[in-house]
């Protein structure tokens, strides 16, 4: 009986002490004591943790580096592939834009039949302004057919093989194109030159030419169809002691970046040679 009573009082004492400690802790009276006890423990815990993490990183880092390097190489290869694809797509886009422009031009001029061709080369001689295209007599190309782009006149077919043709540009020194000025309706000739500039010749002195006047083919002579844009007057050279005035014409076609052209296949140039009288001996 006595043992039971003392055990009861022991338990009660423990509960009272525990409750007291809890109440003291909750009320904040034990903070200094707890801080003093916990700080070394936290320091030890931090030291153990940091050493463990360092050891873990030391042990696992080489494997991660290798996998990262491999991943990096894979990504670099993917980037290179994607860049190559971007360049290829940009090239295709440029080609598509050229083709769409040519298609628009062909739709806008339904009276003509066209064969599209790529420019694959230039004349080896720097004195001549010719280009080589990848369509020939197998595609219906014939000598003398006019060649255009969506901007305007390019030239005419000078020589043909089965799979390719040579085109004499309007900038060639041997080219003469009969033209007219859109505003004044005056007719003249556009001559090429060795430097690639084209000039408007045979314009009477009394004709008023203005900068920016559009120059179109006149169709005279039967070499080119009429009303194809050739260029724009960019400078006028008028000397009173000469019979005709001349003007510099800025071509509408950029011949330095010519990529694709259209050959007008339903236009046949007129051969004037039989009509020119020859002297009878």
């Amino acid at each position, binding site marked *: 009986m006595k043992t039971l009573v003392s055990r009861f009082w022991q338990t009660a004492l423990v509960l009272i002490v525990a409750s007291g400690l809890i109440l003291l802790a909750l009320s904040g009276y034990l903070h200094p004591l707890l801080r003093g006890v916990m700080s070394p423990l936290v320091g030890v815990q931090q030291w153990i943790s940091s050493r463990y993490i360092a050891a873990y990183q030391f042990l696992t880092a080489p494997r991660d580096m290798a996998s990262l390097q491999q991943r990096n190489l894979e990504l670099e290869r993917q980037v290179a592939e994607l860049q190559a694809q971007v360049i290829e797509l940009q090239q295709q886009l440029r080609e598509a834009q050229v083709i769409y422009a040519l298609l628009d031009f062909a739709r806008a001029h339904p009276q003509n039949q066209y064969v599209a061709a790529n420019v*694959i*080369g*230039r*004349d*080896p*001689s*720097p*004195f*001549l302004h*010719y280009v*080589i295209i990848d369509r020939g007599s197998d595609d219906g190309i014939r000598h003398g057919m006019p060649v255009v782009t969506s901007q305007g006149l390019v030239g005419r077919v*000078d*020589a043909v093989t089965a799979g390719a043709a*040579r085109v*004499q540009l309007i900038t*060639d*020194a*041997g080219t003469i194109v009969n033209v007219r000025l859109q505003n004044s309706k005056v007719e003249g000739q556009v001559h090429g*030159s*060795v*430097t*690639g500039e084209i000039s408007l010749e045979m314009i009477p002195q009394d004709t008023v030419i203005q900068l920016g006047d559009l120059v179109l083919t006149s169709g005279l002579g039967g070499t080119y169809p009429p009303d194809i844009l050739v260029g724009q007057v960019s400078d006028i050279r008028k000397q009173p002691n000469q019979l005709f005035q001349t003007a510099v014409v800025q071509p509408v076609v950029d011949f330095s970046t010519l990529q694709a052209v259209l050959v007008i296949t339903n236009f046949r140039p007129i051969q004037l040679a039989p009509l020119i009288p020859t002297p009878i001996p």
Partner: protein
Amino acid sequence: MLADWLAFPLLGGLLMIQTAIISRLTLLSGSGDLILLALIAWALHERVRSALVWVLAGGLLVGWVSGMPLLLPLIGYGLVVALARMIRRQVWQIPLLAMLFVTFWGTLIYHALTIVVLQFSGSPLPWESALTHVTLPSLFLNIVLAFPVYALFNDLANWLYPETVVKNA
């Protein structure tokens, strides 16, 4: 004999590079002439016995592709190669210097002939304009291109005509 057979495919390949690339790389209106340089380098090599087939191949290929009169490249290249063979036999012992010398005079000769022929064939070329805008820039480009072309064709000629060593008994 093998060298003669190689003339057409080699010069044909060079002509493709010329029309597709070199003719687009212009300085003013001038451009380099790979065929001319190849013929000069070939003709200057000490062990090349004959350059006649190469002149025929180069002249005919260029005459066929170009808008120039057919015989003009043949005659022009023939004259330049004749100059190169004369220089090789009589004067020069330093091939690279000879290459530059013949490139300089060969370009001038070939261009002068071209201007004269084109004048008579209906393409009026003003001398001054042709000289300043075409010939002088082409001359510069040809001299720049002469070094790699010489190295290439010198190696080719060495391979086709290996040096023979005579042993005295």
